[in-house]
Every structure is written in C-alpha cells, then in structure tokens.
C-alpha cells in the first residue's frame, strides 16, 4: 500500500521533470541552430572567398556554383603574385603600419600622461583640440593634405602614408581615461625613490596601462593595414602602393572573369588579421568592449 502510494505520487513528478528537461534541451537545440545560422551569415562570405581561391579558373565560373573545390588548386595564389609587384605592396604595407604604430605609441603615451596627471596653463583648450580632431574625418581634408605633401615634394615616398597618422587623438583620449584612474601617489612614490620622469613613465606607467595600449595598437593595426582610401589618394605609382590597393586592382586587371585570382588576393590581404584574430580573439573582443567605456 505504502509502495503503491509512493509511486503514484512520484510518477507525475518524474514525468513533469522529464518534460521540463526535454523542453529545456529542445529550447537549447533550437537556439543552437539559430545561433549557427547567425554565425554562418557572417562567416560564410569569407569561407566562400577562401574556397573560391582554391578552385580552378574553370570551376570558379561554374553556375550554379560548387561549394567545395573539386580539385584543390593553389595556382591562383601564384597568379596573384605574378600579376603585379605584390612583394613591394606587402613590404610597403608592413613598413607603413609598423611606422605608424611605433610613432603613435611614442606620441600617445606621454600626451595622455600629461593630460591626465599634470596641471598647466591651456590644458583644457589643448585637450579640446585633441577631441575636435577626433571628430574631423581625414576623408574630408584629404585635398589640402595631398597638396601639402605635393608642395613638400613627398609624393614619391611613403611619407604621405605615414605622417598624417603619427598621432592618434582617439588613442590619447582612451589612454588618458585609463591613466586618470591610477592614483597620483604611485607616481610620487616613484619620484621619491629617485626615478626621473622618463623612468617613471617606462617602469611605472607603461605596465599599468598595458591593456589600453594593446587596445589602441590593435585597433590601429586593423585600421591601417586595411586602409584603402588614403593610399589611393596619396600614391600614383605601383612602387608606393599597399596591399589593399594591389588587391583592389586585381579586379580591374583581370576583369570579372577570374574570380579565383581576385579571391586569392583577398585571402592574402585578410590572412594576417585572421591569424591575429584566431590567436587573440578574446583579447581583441575585450579591446573593442573597452572602447565603449567612457
């Protein structure tokens, strides 16, 4: 009697539990499917880019298209390399990005430090200037900048691609926000210990704002590695062009027919950033989230 009673009470309890669990699992399964669809929507075009680059020229033209390459073909990468001075493009891109990042680091950290921790005449006004330049897009002032570079006879060098970006107002703003949160006592203590301004900055300040510095550098890297507009405006010869321009020109050179070559070029352009992202996706995502903090 006791036994029967117990089972009759437990029975609906178990089935209710089961229904609840099933519903939870089904919900999770549906959500997982929806999330996968969402992910595919954003990743597929790049997957398509890679797959097309690996197809033979004939297969890249088939309509309706094939998804996976029937024969894996690396010919298109060689073809990209032979179609123009891609070695030069790559070197230019690397030199420009390295120079910009180094210069931005050297100018942004001391500026941000001074704006955060020093009191001096004209500070508010100067900081307002920095903020204002953050808002003026260089896409609207490229005409006078081009003419300035032309007057200084710098147009046959890589200088016009570097100079307009050696200071990052946005970086100064972001770093200042970080330095403001460090207590003054820390810097005073370093100075009492006999450290000069330079050593204080290098040994005390820099380690404390490292995440913010990495953020600024990562974002700068993405921006300038990918930049298409500025090299387009500032360069006239192949020898000075960068990878994005070289890749964009593939379409013009090859017409619309050789999509496998065009996509191979884009793979080369995207590869360094994709590797950086895969190795560092958590860091990069945190960096972006960080820019939203005011």
């Amino acid at each position: 009697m006791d036994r029967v009673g117990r089972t009759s009470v437990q029975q609906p309890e178990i089935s209710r539990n089961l229904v609840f669990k099933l519903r939870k699992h089904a919900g999770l399964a549906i959500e997982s499917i929806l999330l996968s669809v969402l992910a595919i929507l954003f990743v597929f075009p790049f997957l398509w880019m890679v797959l097309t680059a690996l197809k033979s020229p004939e297969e890249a033209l088939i309509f309706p298209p094939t998804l996976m390459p029937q024969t894996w073909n690396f010919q298109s990468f060689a073809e990209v390399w032979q179609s123009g001075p891609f070695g030069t493009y790559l070197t230019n891109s690397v030199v420009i990005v390295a120079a910009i990042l180094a210069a931005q680091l050297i100018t942004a950290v001391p500026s941000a430090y001074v704006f955060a921790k020093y009191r001096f005449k004209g500070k508010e006004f100067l900081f307002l200037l920095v903020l204002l330049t953050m808002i003026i897009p260089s896409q609207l002032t490229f005409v006078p900048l081009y003419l300035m570079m032309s007057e200084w006879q710098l147009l046959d060098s890589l200088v016009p691609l570097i100079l307009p970006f050696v200071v990052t107002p946005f970086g100064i703003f972001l770093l200042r926000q970080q330095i403001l949160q460090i207590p003054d006592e820390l810097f005073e203590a370093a100075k009492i210990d006999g450290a000069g301004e330079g050593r204080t900055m290098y040994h005390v300040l820099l380690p404390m704002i490292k995440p913010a510095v990495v953020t600024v550098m990562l974002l700068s890297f993405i921006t300038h590695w990918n930049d298409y507009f500025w090299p387009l405006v500032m360069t006239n010869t192949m020898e000075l062009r960068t990878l994005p321009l070289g890749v964009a020109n593939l379409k013009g050179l090859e017409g619309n027919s050789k999509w496998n070559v065009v996509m191979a070029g884009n793979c080369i352009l995207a590869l360094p950033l994709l590797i950086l992202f895969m190795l560092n996706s958590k860091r990069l995502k945190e960096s972006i989230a960080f820019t939203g903090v005011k």
Partner: protein
Amino acid sequence: MTRFKTVFPYVLLLPTMVWLAVFALYPLGYMVYLSLTSWDLINPNIEFVGLQNYMNIVNNARFYTMLENTFIFFLLTVPGTILVSTLLALWLFKKRLIHQLATSAIFTPHIISLVSVSMVWLWLMDPSIGLLNYILGWLNLPQSDWIASSKTSMLSVAIVSIWKSVGFFTLIILSGLGRISNEIQEAVKLDSRPNVYTFFKITLPLLSPTLFFLFFIASIASFQVFDTIQIMTNGGPAGSTTTIVFFIYDYAFRHFQIGFASAVSIVLMLILALMMTLYFRFISNKVHYQ
C-alpha cells in the same frame, strides 16, 4: 628645477601639438582658402574667385543628388546598425560557449578589409551569377538586381555596411550590458513583469549612454563611406550611390576642380558640425547616466 617643472608638460606635448597644428588645423584653413580659388592642380597660377565655387554648389544638380544619397545612406545605416546590434546583443548576452562563438563570428567582418568585404559582396550580389540570387531562386523567392539597379543599389551598399559593422557595435553594447550592475540585473530577474516592460523601463535607460556614443560614431562613419562605393558601384548606376567622400574625390582627382571640391568639403563640414551640435543639444540630455 621649478622652471623645468612648468615647462615639462609642454615639452612632452610638443610633438602632438605640432602634429595637430600642421595636419589637422592648417589643412582646414588651407581648405577654406582653396574653396575661394579656381585651380586644376596643373596650372601654376591659382586664381582667386571669391564665393564663385559656393554659387556653383547651389546650381549643381549632382550636389543635391549626392546630399540626398548621403542622407538616405545615413538613415539606412545608423538606425539599422544600432537596432540590429542591440537585438543581437540582447540575444548573445549569455555566458554559454556557443553564444561566445556566435559573437566571434559576427565580429569577423570588422577585422577584414572593406576591400575584401566589398569584393566578396560584389560577387555575391551579381544579378546573374551571384550566389544571393541563386539562393533566392532556389527558395522560389523573387530575385533582385542588387547593385545593378539604381532602385536597389543604395540599399545593397547599406546592407553591406550594416553587415560589416554590426559585430563591432554588438560587442560594445554587450560590454554596456555587462556594466549594468548586478543588483539591478537581479532585481530585473525577480520582477515578474514581462521582459519587454523591463527592457524599456530599466535596461534601455541604463544602456542609453552606450547607445548615444554608438549613434555618434555611426553617424560620423556614415559620412565617411567610400571604399564600398568605389569598389562595388563606382557611384552608380546613374549616380544613385554617389555620396560625400566619393563626390569630393571625383571632383578633386577626376575632374581636377580643386576649388569646387574644397568648397563642397567645407559645406559638408558645416553640416556635420551642425548635426553634432544638435545631437548634444537634444539627445544627450535624454541620456541617463548611472
């Protein structure tokens, strides 16, 4: 020593300030001067023409089309990006691995060059051999001419822009959601009222500083669009995707009308400045700071 201390900040700021003066302020002044001249880049004499270029803007039909296009692009991309990324952030604001992976996926377009993004989409959107129309046909849905028709070209470019930037915006909104304090989130969970109610009454007001910041960034970005247009449509068909930067570039480096191009830049700078002032006047005081 004290003398050193008063001079020191200026010494550290010197490189930045010299740069600001030479590469940010001087070009502005130079541009104002250029806008009052007529010059073709080659002629050694720059002719002073007063306000002639500004008169020409008023009488230039292409200018109004460009202004309209820019405004349409702004109206499509700014609310579009913010709406889509807010919804995505609300969905993805969970600790599960699969949500993290999906966040990474939607962020991928942000790190890829607009050159690649534009070229891949140019092909996907091809009316005859593009994958998009193939899929639409397979699903028995009506196909589109995408960028090949002046009716849908701007919308197509806007879709690509939104698609590219949604991941970046979602990440920032996610961090905004993360900063809403735990107590408030607990209270929201205990509240038996429907989610929609708590969203509009609690989450949205607390998120408003983040959204305002993004609204600001998105607006400036919408005025800077160039790469997508240059690569995908070249301003066409029939001028239907010619926006500000493309227009200025076109006049400066293809028609060599430096004065006119500069005058257009000045006018648009003024429009931008006016817009920013309006933003801070009318929207920023509705933003709720925690």
